[in-house]
């Protein structure tokens, strides 16, 4: 099994350092692999330095991929964080 979810950046500041850190912290709690895909690039979502290379401004679209035993819970928490605009709306 594997979960793939398309998400859109909806907050004004985009995927800046604070949400990047939060996403990595969330992902690190889970056993499943977590990747963020964008424009053919695949970034390990548990790597802060990797996530920081994503210049994702407002409006950009990313694909989140979860793969592993607790993928369901991980996907729920992280997708919801994107949908809430990183709590910056």
């Amino acid at each position, binding site marked *: 099994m594997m979960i793939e979810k398309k998400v859109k950046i909806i907050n004004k500041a985009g995927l800046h350092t604070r949400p990047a850190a939060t996403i990595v912290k969330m992902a690190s709690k889970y056993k499943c692999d977590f990747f963020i895909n964008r424009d053919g690039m695949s970034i390990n979502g548990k*790597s802060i330095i*990797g996530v920081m290379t994503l210049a994702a401004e407002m409006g950009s679209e990313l694909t989140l991929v979860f793969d592993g035993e607790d993928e369901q819970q991980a996907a729920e928490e992280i997708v919801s964080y994107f949908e809430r605009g990183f709590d910056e709306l």
Partner: protein
Amino acid sequence: MKSFKEIISKSKNKIPGIAAAPGIVIGKSYLFTKEKIEISKAPITDIEEAIKNFNEAIAQSKKELHKIFQIAKEKMDETRAAIFEAHLMILDDPVLLNTIIERIKKEKVQPEFIVADEISKYQELMIISNESYMKERAQDIEDIKNRIIRNLQKKRLHSKIENEVIVVSESLTPADTLLFSKHSALGFVTDHGGLTSHAAIISRSLNIPAVVGTHNATQIIKDGSIIIVDGFHGYVFYEPTEEQIRFYSEKQKRLYELQKGLEEYKEKDAITSDGKKISVEANVDVSGEIDIVISSGANGIGLYRSEQLLDELGEFPNEEEQTTIYSKLASRMYPLICTIRAFDIGGDKFRFQDYKEPNPFLGLRGIRFLLENEALFRTQIRAILRASKHKNIRFMLPMISTLDEIWKSKKIIEECKKELRKEKIEFDNKIKIGIMIEVPSAAVMAKELASEVDFFSIGTNDLIQYLMAVDRGNDLVADLYQEFSPVVVRTIHHIVEGAREFNTPVSLCGEMAADTLAIPLLVGLGLDSLSMSPATILYAKRIINSFSYKKAKAMAEECLTFKTQQEIEERIKKFFEENKIIRTRNII
């Protein structure tokens, strides 16, 4: 035997420099070339060792960043603080760390190369993005990359240094100087730097001969060759002749005998022939020096530069760590007095400072920095109070330029005392609070400031620089830095006069106190104590014991009427002749 003049005049193999720390040493040179973030791709054989070093460098970087993060949280808005948190997370990044370790195993080259290469890949990804904030982000990452590499290189350096060599380098940071002294360095020679550079100050206090400001010693001296360092006159001899070696070995022997002759002053106080006692105290840079201070015959510590702890530890020690350090200092020195100066640093010490000061010497320094970073200041005050229970600690504030700074500081100290009382922690309720007089405005207001504090300490290095508006490290204008300028002599006189109105004792802790020529003048001007590097204490005691206060006072009064530095210097030299005082540098 040939005279020093003959030896000097005919030798073509001498490199002149500034005599920064007295002494003579003949030994093997070690050319220390700073690899300015020059990254070595050298192959390694011991992979386990390399990985261990890498892990330790990460741990050390984490420790450093954590401290900065703590301060950042207090000082900055959340977004900036979040950047530091992200940096800390990078040091835990499993993907990054594993990739680096795997590559060390596979490629078998210096970890620093792999760290640089791996992190640069991410930076490139950031830079190719068109967003300007991504370029900034790449810059932020640069900082963390350099931090790891620096810590790795430190480890590599440690394993490379030989013991008992004369270190020859372009310049030396305080940390370098300490590191080498731990490897029992015999002497220091540098291309850059002056008498007041940190390397010079530290080598003086550690009693290691040094010649600085040679301009090109690193280009002339070959690594591993035998050289002679004359820290009295400021000369380095490369490829020395047999005659030179014989001459200097003889001098070393005489120096040794002379120092033995000084031994008697260890137990003696510095008292003028007509009975005025001058307290001769030690300037201390590093905790390791305490043994030297105790064996130097000092009457106490006149200046403990607590900011040196940052160089030693690479970070701000917390309250517990500071309490331990200061308590140890106080109990080792007991019953002698220890004067601890609050962290004397500028804002440029911190990377998180967004604003780069165009003129740090006129900027957020000393007490200004401490009042601006109150939490840090409080931590130090609490630690000093906690260490003061044996009542032999005095606390000194640096860079005071207004009364207001004293009032604010005293208020904070009182608040800290109140807290400790509440916590039922023992401390010296009457701890003496003093100030450095090193800014002209403080000198002018000496009387008013004296009414507010328990003691003064004149910091001549900065005072002269500010009085003459001259940077001593700047070769173009260094001539204007004149210890014996009438301006300096009259200013010291004015400070002493102001202090006298309130019976506030005045000490002097600049490099001037260690200049044997200045001692009779300073005593004559009415200073109560002189604080200097431990190595010069016995010399100073010997000089003070060889003249009368009355004569010195008359000489000082005469000097107050002179218009030029030359007249003053001539008068002092005459004083030495009249009183048959021998200056050590003339013997050697």
